[in-house]
């Protein structure tokens, strides 16, 4: 056996096993006895196939290859960082903050339907498109958020029409995040002909959904399911995706949270834990839970999803981070996805580097979150000092708490989250709900993938779709 040396790696215990990872973004799931052999440099005692894997993945190397391996690993690390700093492809536009729902965890601090001064004026459309053109590369996904975006439908209609002309050289995609309140037959027809995707919230069966997401104007659950059924029947080409925000009430019954997805024939669901923005901050005592409580719930939902051939999207995001090292999800990147993942054009005319930034600004009025105004020249957004301030502390390899973590190559920095919950861009990870959720998520994904053959099979299927 040639002299083998260790290359740097982080480790984490997952129950009785160990997960090791390195800066090349590789990982190995190991039994405790094998992990100890590596620590003690007892390489001859290791199964040759395990040894082969460790060498191929640059955990171990013959001493004469140290220089080569350093080059390779730093290449991979540089690539990972570079990919995170690529131009944004997600552009959020907030046509209005008015809303027809009264969600108890509302993160955007919505306003009433008759409130004045909360709509984005159509005169801004050309400038927004100019910003988008300047900041983007090939792919452009424009997502309308609110409030309830359809309340300002005329803005959306005009925007899409102008964008399709002005940005016709890009690969364009449009999404409207809507609770389906103001949707008319005419709007549905338009959505179909313009090939717009719809992103809808379904928090569970009627009792759960309506408790989380009530409306003064109608029965939210009934309306949502009715419209979905109508769309599926008359306009099956319209792409629908749904997501669930989990509250304390949801935790009581995983089956009842996932049931509507099965009943309505969805192939995918997206389970999201609560985040500390908007009204959720004040209602945390009533709606919130610990990371442990969330995961007891989540594991069951994942089980049901797998049994019913549904893809759970947050698991898939984590799997993509692990195996494909994809930098496409803005919340799970390092450096963070602020501006370099997404851009948000708010109803107020302000430009933010993320959806969360505009949410936090609403409740704190922190000017440091603003990257510019729609009327500014596009170049000025990227050179705004606020951007550097936010991003410079998001190199996860250097952050306290994260630098020793075995998941740091797959996880992300969420500076706005920590700014909101702890008042600090880096945050004390030992007290961070975000960190606890992410750690438990990675624990779960790695353990299931490597010790459960059914999950192994299903996760692999999801990954190659």
């Amino acid at each position, binding site marked *: 056996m040639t002299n083998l040396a260790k290359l740097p790696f982080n480790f984490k215990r997952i129950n009785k096993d160990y997960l090791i990872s390195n800066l090349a973004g590789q990982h190995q799931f190991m039994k405790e006895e094998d992990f100890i052999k590596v620590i003690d440099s007892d390489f001859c005692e290791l199964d040759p196939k395990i040894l082969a894997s460790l060498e191929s993945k640059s955990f171990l190397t013959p001493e004469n*290859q140290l220089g080569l391996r350093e080059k*390779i690993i730093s290449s991979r690390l540089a690539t990972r960082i570079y990919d995170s700093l690529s131009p944004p492809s997600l552009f959020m536009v907030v046509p209005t903050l008015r809303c027809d729902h009264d969600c108890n965890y509302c993160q955007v601090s919505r306003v009433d339907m008759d409130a004045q001064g909360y709509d984005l004026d159509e005169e801004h459309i050309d400038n927004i498109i100019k910003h988008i053109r300047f900041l983007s590369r090939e792919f452009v996904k424009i997502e309308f958020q609110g409030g309830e975006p359809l309340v300002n439908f005329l803005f959306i209609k005009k925007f899409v029409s102008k964008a399709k002309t002005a940005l016709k050289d890009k690969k364009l995609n449009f999404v409207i995040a809507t609770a389906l309140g103001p949707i008319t037959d005419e709007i549905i027809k338009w959505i179909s002909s313009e090939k717009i995707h719809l992103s809808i919230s379904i928090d569970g069966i009627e009792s759960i959904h309506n408790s989380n997401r009530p409306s003064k104007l109608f029965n939210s659950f009934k309306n949502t399911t009715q419209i979905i059924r109508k769309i599926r029947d008359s306009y099956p080409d319209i792409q629908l995706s749904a997501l669930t925000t989990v509250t304390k009430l949801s935790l009581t019954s995983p089956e009842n949270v996932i049931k509507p997805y099965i009943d309505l024939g969805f192939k995918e669901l997206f389970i999201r834990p609560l985040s500390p923005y908007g009204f959720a901050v004040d209602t945390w005592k009533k709606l919130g839970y610990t990371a442990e409580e969330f995961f007891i719930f989540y594991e069951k939902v994942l089980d049901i999803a797998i049994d019913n051939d549904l893809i759970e999207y947050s698991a898939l995001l984590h799997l993509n981070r692990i195996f494909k090292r994809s930098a496409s999800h803005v919340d799970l990147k390092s450096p963070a996805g602020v501006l370099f993942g997404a851009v948000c054009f708010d109803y107020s005319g302000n430009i933010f580097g993320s959806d969360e930034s505009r949410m936090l600004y609403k409740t704190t009025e922190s000017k440091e979150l603003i990257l510019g105004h729609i009327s500014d020249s596009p170049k000025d957004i990227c050179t705004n000092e606020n951007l550097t301030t936010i991003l410079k502390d998001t190199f996860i390899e250097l952050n306290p708490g994260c630098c020793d973590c075995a998941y740091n190559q797959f996880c992300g920095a969420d500076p706005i989250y920590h700014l909101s919950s702890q008042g600090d861009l880096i945050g004390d990870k030992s007290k961070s709900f975000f960190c606890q959720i992410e750690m438990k998520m990675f624990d779960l994904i790695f353990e299931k993938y490597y010790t459960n053959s059914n999950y192994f099979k299903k996760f692999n299927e999801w990954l190659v779709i």
Partner: protein
Amino acid sequence: MAGDLIIERQNDFSIQETNAIDGLYVLVSENTDTSHYTIPTISYVKDKFSEMFFTTEDDHDFMHGDIIFINKKRKKVSGVLNQNAKQNTLLVTERCDNLCSFCSQPPNARDDTHFFLYAAESIINFRQDMIVGITGGEPTFDKDKFINFLRILNENNSETPLHILTNGRAFKDLDFVKNITELNHSREVVWGVPVHGHNQQLHDDCVGAENAFIDTLEGLVNLSYYGQFIELRTVVTQKNYQYLENISELISTSMPFISTHAIMNLEPKGWAKRNFEELFVSPEEQMSYIEKSISLNNLHGISSALYNYPLCQVDQKLRPYYHKSISDWKNYYPKFCSGCKDKSDCGGFFTSSVGVYLEDNLTKGKQ
């Protein structure tokens, strides 16, 4: 070749006599303007061509624009670049700094200047829209000769796309890579670089040279710095078939920028014939390891391709990766293939595997 060997395409024919001087020629039909050619032309009339050489063999697979080589001593006219060929490959040198135990073109220290020149002339005088393979030996063995070869192509405005087989060791010199990238700016190039083992021990053993692994890997990383297209090739033998998934792990760790991972069955030619006993592992035995390797490649978003396998010996679920790849003048279908419904999709067998290699090792195919 006679008997029950049906070869798809005849690449050469024997001649009795000719007045033509040995060398490269372009076949041209009557009334063609030949002023732009840099090598002599020979008049080509379909079905009458071989008559010129007083032979009764047919010339159906040649056509106007093809490059041929006349060799009076060997009494042969050979196709050099042919439009009917599925693949055209030119040998530019027999020299090499590796000594692969399965080398299909064993090295030779003879001077290779004429190989480079013939290759350049052939490419320059052939149509520019068909990809040409460049092989050896090791084409970059002499860096200056290789650079000169590219320069000659450029001076003659050749934009022919090239598929260049190389062990990649010369690319550990970053300046060399920079140079070559600049010289190739008006042509598409794919580099076919073999990696046969997941580590130095295995790879160096397969290629019979110390430091090959380190050099090749450095070369690959350097190629990636210049955005080059790389097809990574692994020849599967008894030595490495159980480590295919580890090679995939190496790929995803060290060179995830490659375009394709080509997994190749052994071609019983050259030294591979000599060492066949110790090298051969049946496709059947290979399949489960190939499957694991392809799964890992898929997981990491790297595309895979299977070359040189008879279709019947490839698992159904791996067929999407199958390429009908044996050069058409090298392949044939033994008698029992005649009833097979997949025959037209299958590359068949290498003609070099006639005899002991085929009979001993053919497992029952799935019809």
